[in-house]
């Protein structure tokens, strides 16, 4: 029985990490990262963790750096959505800032193109 303790070592060490916290990363987006689309009414990011609505942000900028989204970000679980008006042809940059419910903060960008 005593020797069992030694066998438990790797599991125990894994066990003690129970309060470790993760960060919310981009899982996928709609429109897809780097994709080309013909039309869209909103941009949605799907994160790997649940988000805090009060501190998470999603913005869409055109090639000149002007914010083109409607600033009506909605957060539901791990998903963040912002509406956009009818967008002209060009490349658009999405900037996201995610604060997970475990309080950790991440941010990132990606682009998509409208034909």
């Amino acid at each position, binding site marked *: 029985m005593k020797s069992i303790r030694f066998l438990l070592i790797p599991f125990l060490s894994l*066990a003690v*990490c129970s309060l470790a916290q993760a960060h919310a990363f981009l899982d996928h987006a709609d429109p897809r990262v780097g994709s080309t689309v013909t039309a869209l009414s909103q941009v949605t990011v799907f994160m790997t963790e649940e988000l805090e609505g009060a*501190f998470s942000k999603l913005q869409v900028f055109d090639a000149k750096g002007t914010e083109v989204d409607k600033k009506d970000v909605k957060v539901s679980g791990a998903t963040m959505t912002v509406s956009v008006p009818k967008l002209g042809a060009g490349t658009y940059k999405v900037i996201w800032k995610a604060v997970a419910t475990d309080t950790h903060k991440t941010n990132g960008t990606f682009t998509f193109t409208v034909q």
Partner: protein
Amino acid sequence: MIAAVLVLARTVHIGSAMLLVALPLFMLVILQPGLGAERGEGYSVFCRKIIKGLWLAFILEALSGLVWLWFVAAQMSDQSPWRILDSADLNAVLWQTQFGQLWLARAAIGVLLGVVLYFVSRRKSQPRPVIYPSNWLALAVSSILLATLAWAGHAVAGIHYHILHLVADILHLLLSSIWPIGLIPLGWFLWDANQRNQVLLEDSEIGTLKRFSQFSLIAVLLLLITGFINGWLMIGSWTALFTTTYGQLLLIKVLAVMVMIGLGAYNRIYLLPRIQEGRSFLLSLRRTVLGESFLAMAVVLIVGIMGTTSPPF
């Protein structure tokens, strides 16, 4: 700077929350069955010391909780810790985020624990602590306070196996109070016996050591299950264990835990059966348990650091 303070606050908070459970648990479950009415005096004095230790842990838990909230608010809102104090964002963190609401609920539980501890410490003598309901209530409330820490961790943000992760976290936190954090009151107990110039331990005190050994073995076995679940949900692969910062921190922790278990096995197999043969065995046991206690605190520190590091899975 924010990350360093958060590591410190988390470490102190998790450690003191576990001690708030470990101390009454030791007094009521590990120590108490060895208490007959005829040998109440020395134990009563030690129990009073445990209650003072409870107050110290309570104060540390409250202060570190405030610092944790303060710096998390600064981190979430991208402001300096000094600026956040004047900002509406502090209110937003408190009332509009899951973390803030959790902290408000935990503050209410903390106030309740303070009231219970007041009634516990009003009793001048504790010849048989097990008969006083307020002592058990203190254990129950502090256990709830510790269990709620699971909502401050990864389990609450995860989108996979949410309930499983939360349950494993809660059980794991509570079990950790038996072992390894329970080593701290055990070390204190042995140190106290030495302070009273006891040459050898009495039968009831040896019973206390054996009881701790049995409880810790059960705790270790249950930690195996909850730990395996947590490890599976957090790490995801063996490669990540070696190639990520999080994994490397975990490996350092593995080493600390290996040393602790090695010392525990030495105590159980070699020292405990010889404890009545001479004072040197008692002193050796005291040294190894104190060493394990320091390692337990080091493990909590590593957990604090890992909490600010992103796990690979």
